[in-house]
Each structure stands twice: as C-alpha cells, then as structure tokens.
C-alpha cells in the first residue's frame, strides 16, 4: 500500500512567505508545486520530508512571457502551459517537441516546469532542452535572487544548486536570430521515461553553425550537455558530414548505464543517431524549411 509517511504542511501565498517557511523548517522542508515528482517519491517512501511547503497559491509564478530579448518562464508554469504557449513554440520549437513527449496530457496539467527541473532526474527532458538553449535559472533566497546558467544548475542526479532555503522562481531563455531547435526522444512506449533523448539548438550565420547547444537526456552527459560535440560544431558548415561527426563525438563523451531500457552500447548508439537527427532538423528549421521527411514518427519520437 503505497502511501506517504506522516508529514506536516504549510501553504505559501508569496515567494517571501515561501522563503521564510523554508528558512524556518530547513533542512527537512520541501517545496510542493505540482507534486508529480515529489509525491510519487513520498508514496514509495524514498523521500520523507518533514514539512511540505505548498507554493501552488503563488499564481504570480505561473507565466510565460517575453521580456525584451528573453522568454521568461515562471517556475510554476505547468507543462501544459508551456506546450500551449505559442510564444514558446514560435521561438523554441525544441520546447514543444520536448513537452509533447513528457509524461502524458493529464500529468502535464499539474506538473510544473520548476518542479521537474528541481527534481533533477537524469531522465528529465527539459533539463537538456534548457541546457541546449543556453538558458539560465533565477533562484530566490534570503539574500535576494541570483542567476545561474542552466548548464550549471544540475550538479548530479537529483541534485541542483538550489539551497535548502532557496527556491527556483524563473527560467530565462535568450531569443536570438537565425535560430532553429529540435528535440527527439526514444522511449519504450508513449509517456515512458526516455531511453535516450537529444535536443539541439543552432544559430546560423552564412551557412555555418555560429553557435550550437546540444542537450542529452538519460545518458549520463555532464550537466546534460554534449560539450565536446558543441565545440567541434562551432564554425562548421551546417551539413550531414558535420552532424555525423558531432554525433560520434557526443556518443564518445557520454556515460550511459545499462539497465532495463537497454545496454550502454545501444544508448551510446542512440546518442549518435539522435544527435544527428536533431541537428538536421534544427538546421532545417533555422533555414525556414520543414523538418526532414521520412517515416511517420514512432510514438514518443518528435518529428
């Protein structure tokens, strides 16, 4: 009978109140947003916080808006909000690609962007997507807010830089011209955690890759990033040869584990294969072309 252990509960109606509750109850307190990462852990009794601080009443943290050259996503934005946000899809197709294959529609109604990022599951899709987009996170604490690059946000499986008396409030994504992005995920079934997934964001100039971000999910890539492949690609002509090499480099530098989803050799192959596919699609999108034709995508596989 999987039900949580006893826990105390507080409601916060503002960020200030949430922070003061965190300070009071740290380190045994956990932020409760959608709860769709935390509550399952509590039911299995793998997480046993002493106090839950429910931040759902903080409506002010639920937004997706443009501010100058940035897209800003409030930490309490639900996955469904992000998938429905034309603004997000318009500038960052990778986010819609990813959201479409995260969990299922009902879970997406309640799970939050901030909650998923802070859970820091190595198989969580948005971490790689935000890393590819070179976004940043805003973390509020007792001494004010600080900005942390997405690529430095995660420090290990289930670990982030958010301290016990801090909370994530916003994700920021720079909007830059000549951009294209894509995300592709392979899973055993619709809604399953990925066996492996890759996201790419490219910024072109004169037919070459001026800048690129490659995020990898569930394959042990440090900070969810394929840094060596990115370095190789910068300045390269945007074409199949470069994609193939980038794929090989990305595969060589990740650390997938063998498990029920597949052996490490297969996951490593996936890294190469998917990196090539997302680069190809991202470049085509940056050029204003449709994604590459081919087979109808399998469930869980973005076009």
């Amino acid at each position, binding site marked *: 009978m999987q039900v949580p252990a006893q826990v105390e509960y507080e409601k916060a109606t503002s960020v200030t109140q949430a922070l003061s509750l965190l300070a009071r109850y740290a380190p045994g307190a956990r932020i409760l947003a959608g709860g769709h990462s935390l509550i399952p852990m509590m039911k299995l009794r793998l997480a046993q916080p002493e106090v839950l601080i429910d931040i759902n009443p903080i409506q002010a943290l639920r937004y997706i808006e443009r501010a100058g050259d940035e897209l800003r996503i409030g930490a309490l934005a639900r996955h469904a909000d992000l998938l429905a946000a034309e603004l997000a899809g318009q500038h960052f197709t990778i986010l819609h690609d990813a959201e479409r294959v995260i969990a299922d529609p009902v879970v997406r109604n309640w799970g939050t962007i901030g909650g998923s990022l802070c859970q820091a599951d190595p198989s969580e899709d948005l971490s790689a997507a935000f890393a590819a987009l070179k976004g940043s996170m805003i973390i509020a604490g007792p001494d004010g807010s600080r900005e942390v690059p997405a690529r430095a946000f995660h420090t290990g499986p289930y670990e982030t830089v958010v301290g016990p008396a801090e909370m994530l409030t916003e994700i920021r994504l720079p909007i830059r011209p000549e951009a294209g992005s894509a995300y592709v995920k392979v899973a*055993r079934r*619709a809604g399953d955690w990925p*066996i492996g997934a890759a996201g790419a964001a490219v910024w072109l100039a004169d037919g070459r890759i001026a800048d690129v971000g490659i995020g990898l999910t569930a394959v042990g890539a440090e900070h969810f990033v394929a840094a060596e492949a990115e370095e190789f690609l910068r300045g390269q002509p945007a074409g199949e040869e470069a994609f193939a090499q980038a794929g090989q480099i990305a595969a060589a530098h990740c650390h997938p584990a063998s498990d029920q989803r597949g052996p490490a050799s297969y996951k490593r*192959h996936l890294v190469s294969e998917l990196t090539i596919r997302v680069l190809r699609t991202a470049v085509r999108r940056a050029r204003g072309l449709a994604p590459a034709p081919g*087979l*109808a995508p399998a469930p869980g*596989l973005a076009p």
Partner: protein
Amino acid sequence: MLYGAILRSPLAHARIVSVDASAASAHPAVVAAFTGADLAERGMAWMPTLFGDVQSVLATDKVRFQGQEVAFVVATDRYAARDALELISVDYEPLPPLMDASTALDPGAPVVREELPGGNHIFDWAAGDKAATDAAFAAADVVVTCDMTYPRSHPAPLETCGAIADYDAVSGRLTLWSTSQAPHAHRMLYAALTGLPEHKIRIVSPDLGGGFGAKVPVYPGYVCAIAASLATGRPVKWVEDRSESLMSTAFARDYHMHGEIAATADGQILGLRARVLADHGAFNAVAQPSKFPAGFFHIFTGSYQARAAYCEVTGVFTNKAPGGVAYSCSFRITEAVYLVERLTDMLARQLRMDPADLRMRNLLRPEQFPYTGPTGWQYDSGDYPRALQLALDMAGYDELRREQASRRERGQYMGIGLSFFTEGVGAGPRGHMDIMGLGMADGADLRVHPTGKVVLAISVQTQGQGHETTFAQLVAQELGLSPDDVEVVHGDTDRTPFGLGTYGSRSTPVSGAAAVVAARKVRERARLVAAAMLEADPDDLEWQEGKWRVKGDPETALGFVEIARAAHSSLELPDGIEGHLDASAVYNPPNLTFPFGAYICVTDVDPGTGEVKVRRFIAVDDCGVRINPMIVEGQVHRGLADGIGIALMQVIAFDETGNCLSGSFMDYLLPTSLECPSPELGATVTPSPHHPVGAKGIGESATVGSPPAVVNSVVDALAPFGVTHADMPLTPANVWLAIQSVTGVEGVPRVT
C-alpha cells in the same frame, strides 16, 4: 471495518530467523498482527494450490520469492496499517537465489523446495508419437529449428486483488467479498483450510475490474483477511497495491522453448517437435486441469496438416512468484501458437516462400473436420482457408508486399506478419478435465416468475465481458422473450449453482450451453402446460415465432408469459409439471470448442533507433455463432492490444540477485491508445457442431493469435538485415540488438 496490510520479503531466497511483530501490535491503531507462526497455530500458514501443491500464506521457514508474504497487520485505518508494517522486524538469513530456470536442475543449484523429493524438479511430461516424429524429421528435405522464449508477463487487470472477510460468530457464517473468477471452487478450498463447513461460507464476487486469469487463484491476502476476521470478530478488508500485484500474484508464460519444424522442399509440413522448460516460480500454482501439467501446450501443431508431432515439457521451481497459467493463455495455447507460428514463418523464409502461401498450402481443409490431430486433440469444426483468404483480402496483402518492396529500395523498413491460430476452449469434459478433483462442468438455474420474467443463475461470473447481456440473449432467444425480461445472477455462491468459474474462455461454451439446455427444458415444460391449456396432445404442438401452438394453427398460439401464468394458476397441470416452469441443468461439454482466426499485422521499424510502430492490425475471427457481435468485437480489440503489449514492451524481469525489476507500471509497461491502431475486424462463422447454439467462445482468441503476428511482422521488417528471429519483448533496444547481432556493423543492411 479493519484494514489489513501485508509485510513482504525484500529477498528472493532467505531463511527466516525470527519475526517480531510486537512493536506493530503496540501501534495505537493496530488491532492485531499475525506472523507465520500465528497462522500455523490455526493450521492456516500453508494452503493448497489449485494444482496439488501447497503455497505459503505467511512464511514460516523460508521466503522463496521477493514479495512473498511474511506478516499481516490489521488496523483501524489503511494508512496506519501501512505505517505499522515498518514496525515489524524480520531477521533474514539470505540464501543464494535461483533465478535462471535453465540452471534449476544443475547439481549445486540453490534448492527452492528442499522439503519436496524432487527439489527443483516439478514434472516431466510428453505428448505425441516420438518414433513417428523422428521418422518424419529424418525424411524431411528441410528442418528449421529455433530457440525462443515466451517471456514472463502479468495480466495486470486494472483493479488489483482484494477481499473483505466478515465472520459472524453468532451465525457461524463467513462472508467473503473477493475478487474471484472461481468463487465456488474457492469456497471449497476455504472450507478445507479454515475448518468452517462449506454451507456456512458465502463468497460474493460479482463485478470485477478485469480478471484475465489474475483472479483465479486463492491468494495469501484473502486467507489472512479471513484469519484476521476469525480472530478479531470484525470485518477485515485487504486490497493489494499494484506492486504487490505485479510481484506476487499469478504471472503468465515463462516458457523456454526449443522448436523444430520439418517439411518437404515444396513446403509441405511433415512434423513438429518441441522441448520446453517451464518456469513455475516457487510453488506450483498453475490454474489448469489437473491431468495436464503443461496445460494444452500439445496443441502446438496448430492449424496445419502435420501428421507427426512430439513435445516434452519439464517444469521447475525458481525463486519467483508462483503462477504460470493466466493472461488469456487458454492453458498454454498462447505458448503453443507462438511457437508454431514463428516456426512456420521461419520455414517460409528458409524455403523462400511467401508466408501466406505456405500457410494456405498447409492449413487443414474443411472436409477434414472433425479433425483428430497427432497429439490427440479433436478439433470440432473449421474452415481455415476461407478465414485466411478474408484476412488477406481485407489487408490488401499483395499491395502491402509491393509497398514493402518499394520502401526497402528507399531504406525504409515495414513488416507484414501473419498468424493463424486454433484455440481450444471451454474446458471441459469432466471425465478427463478437473481442477482439484472438481469436474469442469457448469450449471445454470432458471426460475420463471408468474408474470413470465426469468431469472438465470449461472456459475460463471463476469469481469467485464458482458455475461449479463450475452446470457440474457441466449435464454431470451430460446423462450421467445426480450433480453430485458431475463435477469442474470452471478458471482454469489449463495445464489448460484456450482461451477468452476470464468477463465479459459469457457463461459459461453460451458455455462452458456448450460443456460441454453436449462432454457430448453423450461420450454419443454411450457409445451406440457400449453398442451394442457389447449387440451391438446403435447406432440401436436410446435414452437413458432416464440410461441407454442397446435401445428399449423396460429390462432392457438400461446406466448411464454401466458404459459408461465397458467403454470401457477388453478389449471389442472399435466404429469411432470409441479406448479412452475423452473429448470436447471449441469452441462458436461462433450469436447472443447475450437475458435480460430487469421491475423495480419503491419509494422514500420526504424532501424536507427529500433522503434516499432504498429500501423495496422487486421483480425479475422471465427468463434462459431456470434451471440452479440459488439461484445465479441470488444474481446478481439482487447486481445490485439495485448499482442502489441506482449510483443513489444511487457516483461516481468528479474536481476540475478532476485530483485523483481517490473514491480510498477513505470517498468511493467502496458500499451496505451497511441500504440494500438484502430483494428480492422472480419469474421467468418463456422458453428460448433456440439454446442447447443453453435457458439465457441472468444475471450482469449486475440491474445493467443496476436503476439506472433506482431513478432512475425517485425522480423519480416528486419529481413533485409538478415534477422531471422528475435525474442519478445521487441523493445527498441532488443530490435537494435537483433540487427547488430546479425550484421555486426551498426545498422548496415546485408545485401540479400
């Protein structure tokens, strides 16, 4: 009401040194706590299985699988019961676990059942003619062999198992509301176990949230609830959660098969041979007729003309949950059909024959029915070529092959997989089919009220397959009534006749037949009353358009409602009628019935990732007379989804230390609406000659026939790479590995 929770073993194999539940008992919300020792005092620590073995209710000496029941607490609320489990301390002495059935009979293997003379060995069983089969193989031009596994899976009905046990000390009656597909058989078992007389036990099991074989066995949780109610004098409710269900209740399959098919060079199948290792888990708890330790596996010649066949099956214990016969297997026919349909496809490939052509060449012909196969099965009726042709026409088979060729040129890989299956359902003739010594006949009681309304009480009960509708239709048809005039009662042992329950697609063939036979008895009684009403000789009456009348004289027609009223009136009743029209019947089927079908599955495979998408599923089923086509189709829809799940994603897996890796729906994956295409159904009707209305049963057919269609399709898609076989589940990783194992070079197809 008290709520129970079970403490389960985290280890697959360990000696129990001590169990201390005293801290749990001291929890303020806990009313009682039970250990194996406590139950042993009441003679309830061990219970019989449905197959002549015993199973532990709460462990006394050892634990033999991860998830095995060790202790039971009852508390005033469920959450407290869960908390109290953490207060029970158990001291285990770990033992090396036996997780690989293929090593079970090796010297030095860990022994699961040291108290039994056979150790890990359960049975050896064989069927067929070995000499004739060896001769057929020796004479063959082509022999194809394959080792294939039908992996362990779980039926996973959406409602888990549970029970409320309510013992009333004043009346001495035990009422058990439980999720049971076989309430009468369970009642007998509980009587033996508890010492309560059978007539003081009532099992209520009407509306189940799915069964699929998972709710046939008696589970320790039910017994614990009963023991707790006996001890506390209060109702005790126990409902398992999903992980308990997946880890401890009846699994399905786990057959490791070595199959061989022998043929002439022009594709005539001469013989089949199989050697099977059956992993039964820690206790032999298979729910199947007692004379068949490997179920009906020896029907493995399938739908073809092979005259020689021989199979051997060895069953062993391992440190896994008990079970084996569940999930629409028709007593191991899923395994048999999978074997023969894979071998047939592999033979076609070897001979460079189209798999549809090879099947059509070898299918049994209608004039051969009733057909007695080389392992003794007598198939009742069938027109196989017609069903296969219909499936091919519906699929546009030739067009699909052309599309496949064209796509291959463009580096795209689609597969077309066929499966032709024959089922044997409706167990069964009581002379040679029994469970725990109970013959597998089933009863029906019909009571006719004075206003002509009818109540039908049957021994099977429904888990969603619509007996309330189907059986009402059967009776209404016989008596000239509307189905709305027939009330179907099931699932309560106090109100229904004895029978062996719902599984193995037996409801329509056995209980349905009983209902029809009983209805016909009622109709014959109505004849006698009508004759009295008309002052005519009963032989001068005919039944026309739902009424009895003097032959050729419609003016005299009497409807059932009038006759029912008259039977209760002051009318001078004829001999043989006591004052009502009621009748009952126990139906002993003369044989199984043999539904069959032809399935075609079209898949698209992405060799770069190994992903498989099922594009189309064409299913032609013949279940004899279709009593309610909408319900029949619903059963087929479900089985096709099962096939997709079983073939592509479902497996109950373990690691070598005995951990169950599939203890939740996060890892035991079930197909969703996105994996299942809209199926294309067709039907042929070949009535069963021995069933009162010619119906055969349909519930398990699609689960039997669909997995080989999917696997054949994927292997067909990968043929250009040289893949000839790959085991289920064909997850993306397994598909990719199959390609690698043949090509050696990542993803490069071999030129064929």
